[in-house]
């Protein structure tokens, strides 16, 4: 049956191997204290800087979502709620804190206490709380890179200087903590690597403009995001994305889509309900509806519109990426604009807004977003609610019902349109 069909390519295996290799490094760090590790947030992460110390990133979000996909998030969430966290706190944070309390890791391997907890604050206030609490819990040093929010179309000179200054202060901090000298050339090479990975990733995203799209820019993009954040600044990353591009390019050239007959092209806004990832995907697969673009896949970086890291000006380009080139630090109206471009340039039939109660950065105001797309632009838009980590907020019956109704209406209007023409 259609709704059991799912894209599977050889890159999915490669992705698994890469991510496991990463967890092995963390396990090694936990046992031997080497390599140094730095906790960071996915959004606007500055993994390039870490390369200058041959340090490895820890991404609490990745741990949290891995757990949720494996239906193991509820226990740690409850453990955190016992500490006093509210039902309405971000469940990513609760799952992560719960895991530390209960010593749970996604792979069963060990996770190190980070050499530095580096809060790259890019718009998400929850990040600040999260990392403050982690530092308190793990007794680890904390440093905050305060990234000015995108309150204008472009960052100001003083925004950039402020961040560059803090990046340099971070370097000093890491030199103290690791006892290693910052390797500027390595850093510059890392930035060069990133710019190549980003080019490949961007080309992959543009493949989704073809009809049918060779991959699902929401459900499949998520598989590719792991390597993007962990390995972007390394040769492994470049190799992986070369392979991925080749595979998807071939598929596109053969006019092979995600589904036998691509019926609908969608833009997805908001993170997915990881605890019901497969169930949720099936609800769209049933209608052979393919995501051709998604805002969630630009959390770590927004590259399909041309930005690349710049080895000739590494610190500034890292700063630029943190300030202006990831969806979380861009303001709400800039997100409207991003989605609007997707709808037009990726030629989508509609927008799905997935409200997740955990994440106010993503979700607060999405009703206004719906208003903008339906009333101002006349784009069919569906608004559904659940959560990205907490299984208790997914109401399967309601969600399925609304998705079915949305496609019934969309199918009707498409049919009507085809009769008219």
């Amino acid at each position: 049956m259609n709704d059991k069909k799912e894209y599977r390519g050889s890159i999915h295996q490669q992705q698994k191997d890469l991510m496991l290799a990463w967890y092995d490094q963390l396990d090694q760090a936990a046992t031997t204290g080497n390599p140094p590790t730095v906790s960071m947030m996915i959004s606007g992460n500055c993994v390039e800087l870490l390369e200058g110390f041959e340090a490895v990133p820890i991404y609490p979000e990745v741990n949290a979502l891995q757990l949720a996909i494996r239906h193991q998030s509820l226990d740690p969430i409850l453990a955190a709620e016992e500490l006093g966290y509210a039902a309405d706190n971000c469940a990513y944070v609760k799952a992560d804190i719960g895991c530390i309390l209960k010593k749970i890791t996604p792979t069963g391997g060990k996770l190190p206490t980070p050499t530095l907890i580096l809060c790259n604050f890019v718009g998400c206030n929850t990040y600040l709380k999260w990392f403050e609490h982690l530092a308190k819990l793990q007794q680890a040093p904390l440093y905050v890179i305060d990234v000015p929010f995108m309150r204008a179309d472009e960052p100001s000179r003083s925004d950039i200087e402020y961040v560059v200054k803090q990046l340099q202060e971070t370097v000093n901090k890491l030199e103290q903590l690791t006892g290693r000298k910052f390797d500027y050339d390595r850093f510059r090479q890392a930035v060069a690597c990133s710019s190549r990975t980003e080019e490949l990733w961007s080309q992959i995203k543009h493949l989704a403009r073809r009809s049918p799209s060779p991959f699902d820019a929401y459900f499949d993009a998520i598989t590719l995001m792991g390597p993007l954040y962990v390995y972007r600044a390394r040769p492994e990353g470049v190799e992986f994305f070369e392979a991925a591009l080749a595979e998807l390019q071939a598929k596109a050239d053969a006019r092979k889509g995600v589904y036998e007959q691509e019926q609908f092209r969608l833009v997805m806004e908001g993170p997915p309900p990881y605890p019901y990832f497969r169930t949720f995907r099936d609800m769209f697969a049933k209608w052979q509806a393919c995501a051709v673009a998604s805002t969630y896949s630009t959390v770590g970086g927004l590259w399909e519109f041309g930005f690349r890291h710049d080895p000739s000006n590494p610190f500034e380009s890292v700063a630029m990426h943190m300030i202006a080139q990831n969806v979380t630090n861009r303001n709400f109206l800039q997100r409207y604009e991003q989605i609007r471009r997707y709808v037009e340039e990726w030629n989508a039939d509609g927008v799905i807004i997935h409200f997740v109660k955990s994440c106010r950065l993503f979700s607060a105001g999405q009703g206004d977003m719906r208003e903008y797309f339906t009333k101002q632009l006349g784009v069919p838009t569906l608004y559904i609610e659940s959560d990205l980590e907490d299984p208790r907020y997914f109401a399967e019956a309601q969600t399925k019902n609304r998705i079915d109704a949305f496609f019934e209406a969309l199918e009707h209007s498409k049919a009507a349109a085809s009769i008219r023409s």
Partner: protein
Amino acid sequence: MRIAAGVDVGSTQTKAVIMSDNGGVKIAARALVDTGANVQRAAERAFDACCREAGVHGGDVAFVVGTGYGRYKIAFGNAQMTEITCHAKGAAFLCPGTRTVIDMGGQDSKAISVGPNGEVVDFVMNDKCAAGTGRFLSNSAEVMGISLDEVGPLSLKAQHPVKIATVCTVFVESDILSYLAQGKTGEDILGGVHNAIAKRTLSLARRLNIEPEITMTGGVARNIGMVRALEAVIGRKMLVSPDAQFIGAVGAALFALEKLDQSFESGIWRGEHAVPGGH
């Protein structure tokens, strides 16, 4: 003459409607049973009752479309469709000129923008914490120890309706108890409850472009107090069909008839979701 049926398996009640097309489309029979714990059975009971009512054999019914939460449990159904699509279709048929449908179900409240041919243009449904408007009313009735049918008329007698802040169906109970303790009259409390629901429903409908005619569907439409309260906040009269609670089933039956009509080319019938029991 062609005969088709629609069966709407809702969370509390299951409705069946048989429609015939003999030059003109009309409702041949209706039936309503409580859904209860055995959804499949409920669908059968409703369908059989409807056939008896219409004086036809189940076999004579050429096509059956199921809708509502239990739609996939209708073993004898030829196709399934969501109640959103069916409510729009049914409303346009029973209340010609319908452009906006407002429905308060036991589980969901919805507002639907309807096109000239009864197609769904856009729709919105209640936020999570505001689920179950239908329940909101029946809970209030229970707490105050009166029957659901009295609720509406009583609310119209309210002198100084109380204010209800919560949207939670369960917590409204404690608000009501507080007001009872304060010695507020049942009329004023129910008036407050109705106003609260009306305002909440309006703010739901506002997410669409509310255009006349506005039709209220579902069982709650029989609650005169709710209809008046809603009309008061919207600021215009609404259409209410005597068959309001059958509208989902009527819509389903209409689709079933269209299916029999070979000239119909809607894409609705493409895709595997429309084969028997498809899920």
